[in-house]
């Protein structure tokens, strides 16, 4: 059985890649993909600890996280579509008129 620390390190690496993507990317689609990386890092943790404790709660919860990610992507792509219509670009830094 693979030690739990390996899964946690993998999860931390995926999470940090997602954080890096959010901090550096300007393209809204890449932004959305980075958020998905964060969610999937959490999923790795849930599944790993589910296996570690011999309980299925984590795996079942990760399925709900996936469903929530799908909902988030549906709304996110809709927002990106409106962003493109209004600014002819998907660069999140160009949408300055939508600021408070």
């Amino acid at each position, binding site marked *: 059985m693979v030690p739990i620390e390996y899964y946690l390190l993998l999860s*931390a690496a995926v999470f940090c890649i997602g954080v890096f993507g959010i901090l550096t990317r300007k393209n809204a689609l890449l932004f959305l993909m980075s958020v998905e990386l964060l969610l999937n890092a959490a999923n790795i943790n849930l599944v790993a600890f589910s296996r570690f404790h011999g309980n299925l709660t984590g795996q079942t919860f990760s399925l709900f996280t996936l469903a929530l990610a799908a909902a988030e992507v549906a709304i996110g792509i809709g927002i990106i579509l409106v962003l493109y219509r209004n600014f002819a670009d998907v660069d999140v830094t160009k949408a300055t008129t939508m600021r408070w």
Partner: protein
Amino acid sequence: MTNQDRGSLLPGLAAVALFGVLAVVFVRASFGDPAGGFAGSEGVTASIGYAMFNIAHPDAIPSEGFLVAFLLIAVVLDAALDGAVLLARRDEGGEITTALRSDAAETDTTEERVATDGGTVDADSDDTQEGHN
């Protein structure tokens, strides 16, 4: 080194530092002994099904019930679908244009057409664009 490289250097260092902190914490932490696999003779997939609908089965792998969460997620997904459709459609000369209808531009005879959700622009303006086929 370009400006873009310099702009992503600090976030890159922050991400690597975050990974370092997390790695040190994970490696030094004690998680106890693993359970050594799942108890119960049912498969993982079947047991997830039982857990999702709060069905008590003697051979299922132990888990909590998720029926309320299942219903809440169903509502959230439905709302997300409605929100995505609401955001994706737009007005074309007073008519709602959806993804399944692409002939609105051919029947558009108005002087102005709606280019954004917030207002109209002239048809010959440079800002207008064709977002449909």
